């Protein structure tokens, strides 16, 4: 949606048009809820975060100056609310996750060349519902900022520039974390697929598009 539409929507909300605010909620509620759910892994937390996010958007609308896209602002508020929720949960659990929360590195990131192209096999496992849980487990092991960047790029489909704006990082820093998150998830997928069965995809000599 073009920024001028965003600006029009914000102008209407600022002018007291509550229907315009409901329009904004309709446009973003699924995205906000989905991101919050994937970051926290908890439906009740995701619901609370969605409520906090839209209340914040309404209350802080004057501070939005349009220097970034409306969607970027909403994703940033969502990520901050989710991280705060995770921090509270970890404090309550009396477990020191601060290092992981602030972590700039993925623990035990290894890069192993595959024993063949297991892509088709993984595809079959996802179709049969066996891989979704493994992927969720793997993403849960990522430090929060890596997880956020991965979700914004590969699930929500944002550009590296938009993500940099949201997480307040340079594009090279975003790309570096995205790459390491993907390498980690690829490695976890590979471990699983190669454990479950030998790759049954096309032979590597078979001509395929890159």
């Amino acid at each position, binding site marked *: 949606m073009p920024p001028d539409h965003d600006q029009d929507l914000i102008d209407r909300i*600022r002018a007291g048009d509550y229907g315009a605010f409901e329009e904004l*909620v309709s446009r973003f509620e699924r995205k906000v809820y989905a991101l919050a*759910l994937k970051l926290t892994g908890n439906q009740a937390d995701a619901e609370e975060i969605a409520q906090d996010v*839209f209340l914040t958007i309404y209350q*802080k609308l004057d501070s939005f100056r349009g220097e970034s896209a409306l969607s970027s602002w909403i994703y940033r508020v969502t990520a901050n609310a989710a991280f705060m929720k995770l921090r509270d949960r970890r404090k309550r659990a009396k477990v020191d996750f601060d290092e992981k929360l602030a972590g700039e590195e993925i623990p035990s990131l290894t890069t192993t060349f595959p024993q063949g192209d*297991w892509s088709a096999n993984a595809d079959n496992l996802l179709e049969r519902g066996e891989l979704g849980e493994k992927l969720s487990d793997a993403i849960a092991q990522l430090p929060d900022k890596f997880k956020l960047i991965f979700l914004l790029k590969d*699930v929500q489909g944002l550009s590296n520039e938009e993500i940099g704006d949201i997480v307040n990082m340079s594009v090279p820093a975003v790309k570096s974390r995205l*790459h390491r998150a993907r*390498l980690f998830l690829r490695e976890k997928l590979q471990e699983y697929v190669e454990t479950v069965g030998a790759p049954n995809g096309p032979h590597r000599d078979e001509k395929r598009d*890159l």
Partner: protein
Amino acid sequence: MDRTATKSVTCEECIEVLVDYVDGSMDQPTYQAFEAHFADCPPCLDFLRTYKTTITLSARAFNDVEIPEQVSLRLRSYLKEKCAGKKPGQGGPVDV
């Protein structure tokens, strides 16, 4: 398995630049050098394919979240109670 350089590109470089390669954000000569390496290096080609598969499978696995109807209704009810009749933008400054 040959892990030595093919043309001017090494296997290590191939793995390092996969983000740019799959994004299509490389300049054409660099892209062609990497394509030549992938064509000559089956392990890197397998790595590339499984890297791309990780992206597409993750998108499919995680992109299916819908907000439940009851959650959406409670959200609207909550916001109406907190916001309706109140002027927006009265929450003070915030780091945006």
